[in-house]
């Protein structure tokens, strides 16, 4: 009996032992930013990093990252404090085509869906083509196009692209539609400027859309948790507007006054963040045939909506001025990430909020 027990025990011991595992690469990155302090640089990409957007639970930060070796741009996911890119979502066409694929304007919903914009331009194309697509963060490759650009809106405005995608609720999105033109006077620079705000309902078999009235020349769009309310700015305007979508009532949420141009608004509770002033211009450009707001960035303003107190967030590091664009206020309201324009390169910086 003892021998049987011994044999049985030995057999169980053998099968219970684990095999060695083959070697595997280690973790080589960090979930912390390279620099400390506020503001602090969190991306150092020699290419452009743009359109930051927080995940709804603030567990990460999505942005559009230019591939260093080309013009393509992918969506990248950073840890919430910065550090090493955890994931990158690129167009499968990038590797098999000589076209340029830009994935940008990510907007993640609380249920894991991910809306973003894909812009494709072939070397022979006179103009790029764009689409607003919807997938999931878990399986971005399964994204389906919701809307293809360009198209002419019911109000006869030609809309070329979408930006600043915002989830109103699980069934609807709003976005800032853009005019896209080519400035032949400046070596065919691509000029993107806000056209108007569009609401997109996803409930039906095909999405339905409606232009939000009174948003012609809109320059930015924000939501703050209510599916019925949007906040926006207009080109060349110092005011931040609030619009109740159901009733159509528009009111001024805050006016920075002084002839300053407010844009890139973000609202959370009593906090309002916007870029105000700086290297910005607005005006009609005859060559393009519509109003254009050119934006080289500016200082960030933080407004306490309860008290109306407007403060300028730190806008320089070691005496070097920082020109911010497209701030993304974290869901906690304690920090924000914004583009900083340095010459022709845009990186992301993070600021802690008081």
């Amino acid at each position, binding site marked *: 009996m003892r021998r049987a027990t011994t044999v049985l025990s030995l*057999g169980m011991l053998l099968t219970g032992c684990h095999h*060695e595992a083959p070697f595997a690469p280690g973790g*080589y990155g960090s979930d912390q930013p390279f620099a400390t302090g506020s503001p602090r640089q969190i991306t150092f990409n020699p290419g452009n990093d743009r359109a930051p957007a927080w995940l709804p639970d603030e567990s990460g930060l999505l942005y559009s990252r230019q591939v*260093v070796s080309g013009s393509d741009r992918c969506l990248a996911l950073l840890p919430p404090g910065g550090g090493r890119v955890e994931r990158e979502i690129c167009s499968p066409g990038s*590797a098999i085509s000589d076209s340029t694929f830009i994935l940008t304007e990510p907007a993640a919903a609380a249920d894991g869906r991910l809306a973003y914009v894909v812009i494709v331009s072939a070397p022979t194309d006179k103009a790029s083509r764009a689409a607003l697509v919807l997938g999931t963060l878990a399986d971005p490759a399964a994204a389906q196009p919701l809307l293809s650009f360009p198209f002419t809106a019911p109000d006869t405005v030609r809309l070329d692209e979408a930006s600043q995608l915002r989830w109103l609720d699980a069934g609807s999105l709003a976005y800032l539609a853009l005019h896209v033109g080519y400035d032949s006077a400046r070596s065919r620079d691509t000029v993107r400027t806000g056209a108007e705000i569009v609401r997109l309902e996803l409930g039906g078999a095909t999405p339905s859309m409606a232009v939000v009235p009174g948003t012609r020349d809109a320059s930015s769009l924000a939501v703050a948790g209510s599916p019925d309310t949007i906040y926006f700015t207009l080109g060349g305007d110092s005011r931040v507007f609030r619009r109740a979508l159901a009733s159509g009532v528009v009111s001024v949420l805050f006016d920075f006054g002084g002839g300053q141009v407010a844009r890139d608004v973000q609202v959370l509770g009593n906090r309002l963040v916007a870029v105000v002033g700086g290297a910005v211009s607005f005006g009609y450009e005859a060559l393009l045939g519509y109003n254009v707001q050119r934006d080289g960035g500016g200082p960030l303003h933080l407004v306490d909506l309860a008290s109306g107190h407007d403060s300028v967030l730190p806008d320089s590091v070691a005496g070097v001025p920082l020109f911010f664009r497209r701030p993304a206020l974290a869901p906690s309201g304690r920090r924000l990430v914004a583009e900083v324009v340095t010459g022709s390169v845009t990186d992301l910086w993070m600021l802690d909020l008081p």
Partner: protein
Amino acid sequence: MTARTVFVALTLLGTAPLGAQTAGAIAGHVRDGITGQPLEGARVAVDSGPFGAITDAAGAYRIRELRSGWHRVRASQIGYQSAVRESVLVQNGGAVTVEFALQPQAVSIAPVTVEARPDVVLDPLATASTQRISGEELRKLPVSSLDEGIALSAGTVGESYRGGRVGEQAFIIDGLGVKNQLGASDGGLGVRLPPDILEEASLVTNGFSARYGQAISGLVNVVTKDGGERWQGRSAYETDRPLPAGWDYGLDRVVVEGDGPLWHGIRALAVFDASGRLDAEPVDAPAPVDPLDPRSASPWLLPHNSAETYDAAAKLTIPVGGRETLRLFGLRSLEQRLLYDPAFKYDALLGPARRIAGSLASAQWQHRASPETRRPLFLDLRFGYYGRDFLRGTATDSEPYRFGAFTGEPLHIVGEEIARAQDTTLARAPVPGLVPPDFSERTPWGVPAFFLGGGSRGEVAWNRFRELRGQADVDLGLGPDADLYFGGSLVRQHVQTFERALGYLPVGDTVPPATAADFSPQIAALYTEWQQRAKDLGFTFGLRYDQFDPRAVLQGGRLGARRTVSPRFAVSAPLKGATFVASWGRFAQAPDFQYLVDAAFDDTARTGRFRRGNPDLGFETATQFEFSVRARPSVGTSLRVNVYVKRLDGLVASVPLGVNPDSSIFGNADFGSVKGVELVAERDFARWWGVRASYTLQQATATATNAFQLLKVIHVDSITGDSTPPARVEFPLDFDRRHSLTVILQAHAPESGPVPLGPVLRGLEAAVIVRYASGLPYSRTNTAGDTLIGLPNSVRLPPQATVDALLRRRVNLFGRSLGVYFDVRNLLNRRNVVAVRRDTGQPAVATATLQAMAQSAYAAHPEPIPYESPRYRPWADLDHNGYVDGSAELMPLYLAAARDFAQPLLDYGPPRLVRLGFEMVF
């Protein structure tokens, strides 16, 4: 059938043979024990079955077509005391001589049992050079498979026999020919016979019977066991789990075998053999010098290199009436492997993978003549199905390991459905699910160079080969001194292939279209063989007719069948205690059908060349002369010497097609020769131990070493435009191993009786295999790799040596026999070099080459690596500015990556491999 075919068939049927290879015979004389006079009419019976013979006027008898294995032979005659010989070992293709001397008696008394000492070494009628290994021996030696067992034979280098190319052999399983005719040269059989089902396996390398074709260098002849007369079995589990790191390569193997009687004399046998290994092909490469290389901490297991195999076989032996037997056999094998690719070693999720499934089913109906008949006739009718399904490409999400390397799930390959549908139109678009690879970000070095990830090679390769074979074999005894064998076979085959390279890209200028083929070749053969004995002389004459018809449509028409006739002859004679055998034979085999179709089998991806198939290929042939001597210098020892010369002709090679240097076509263009001497010395197992040593001296040369080697048959002068045939120089073949020595030593301490150190040694079994082999040839090139230095294969690798050992201890527990064993391969952990770089002649890459690799990679990607990039490595950011940039920071990374990538892992043979086994025999 053409008039020529009819003529040849009639000619064959009218002529005569040599010994069949699925069974053996017992022959001898029955004499009066007092006078020595021959006894006519004595009955010699085998076992309790219907096998037997009646002696003729000279007292001679011959019992044919006995299955290999141990038999009991009884001789009886009225007025004489019967005699019984226990444990007579019959080996396939051999004739055992058993002589009886019966004692006269007045009344019937119990038979006398004597120990038989049949002598197969001196059997003058065995003209073939046959090296055997039984299933029982396989289990006692440190080998795990039939292939490993066969490789112990003299004259083998892997699956090359007597210097021939791989694929020049055929398998005969229970008398039925089995060959992967689609890709024998690089594809394997796809079915594996579990060692536990084997009765005996043998390698025949010279004038093998005219019964067998489809081979020009060797026959692997396998006989499976029949179910036993009582239920018995064996189960075993082998593993290296409890062994320390560096000895643990993730092995688990489970074997279960059982056999016994069912009812009405029907006997059954079933075997299941499953094996899994996390590192299926471990290498004994030195650890890297760079501590940042993750392999430096655990240098043994390679990632993405696991394999799992499943083999299941079953057999029914059904007696039908008194002299007929029906045998039904089925075998199913599955192998699925993740294939280690150095480029994907850090990002192997979409690394290459392979799945091969093989099936074999056969039915054999055997008729035996009555023992009383003077001209016994044995008839075997066999029908078989053999199929092999091969798939290679990118595994979809690899199944998780459930136990060791076992996943228990089929491996799915991306694009499998398109491949099986052979949809070349759909395959013009990128194959859904395939993603182009990018430079991996997961390497320790970060830099975008050498290592790939995020995608795959983009290959989808599938092929399926199936055949239905019918075969009839007749053995007609023409008295005790002559046998006539004749028969034939008809094989209908079906070949389907598909290959798509760079499947993540659409077909275009740089991406070749998918290739597919679907055709149904037909192979037919007739043979006759006559074996005549005159006193001690044995003569064998054989003639075989083969034809194959690809039945492929070419340019709107169909090519006809190709035919060939192969005569064989052997004579044997005993002289002064030795047996001399001289043989001559011509052998032919149809070419691999892969060479009949375009591109295929990743040749395009491997070499960048587009190769055109040639449906007009003919037979590959060989002519072999052999002279052998077998002798017994003493009672317990034997010595065999074989001297042979083999001439190969019409082997498939690639020849240029037109003037395009990247375009070629397969043709029967290669020729060569093999010369050698084989020495086999053996001490029979007796008094605890036995030993067998075999040595081979061989020289194998040809004008091409494999079918893909480009053979220039015409040289066009670039100035004059004149065409001249270049010299057809023969050079050493890849398998030209000059010297090889294998020594097998076995020892077994008895379980009872006096044994020194009894408690320790009693019942202990030990087996040691020592192998030494001189180096295989390879070609040297200049540093650029574009110019050969000297002739091809003019330089040789260093010699290789291994010592394998098996130690088994049996214990009885609860009436069951349990065994514990250690099986150690490469016991001394000798680091064998199996390949080298052509430019350096060493496994390691030259420093200058590494520098050039790194410099080139840096020049391609000099861009800075920012902090948030997965490629950023903090230790490389020397100025701590958030970037790894500039030559000072990037070049060390590129150099380390180059050194890592160029590690010559696969240039080394296996390390010491230890397995611990438990078995139970019931």
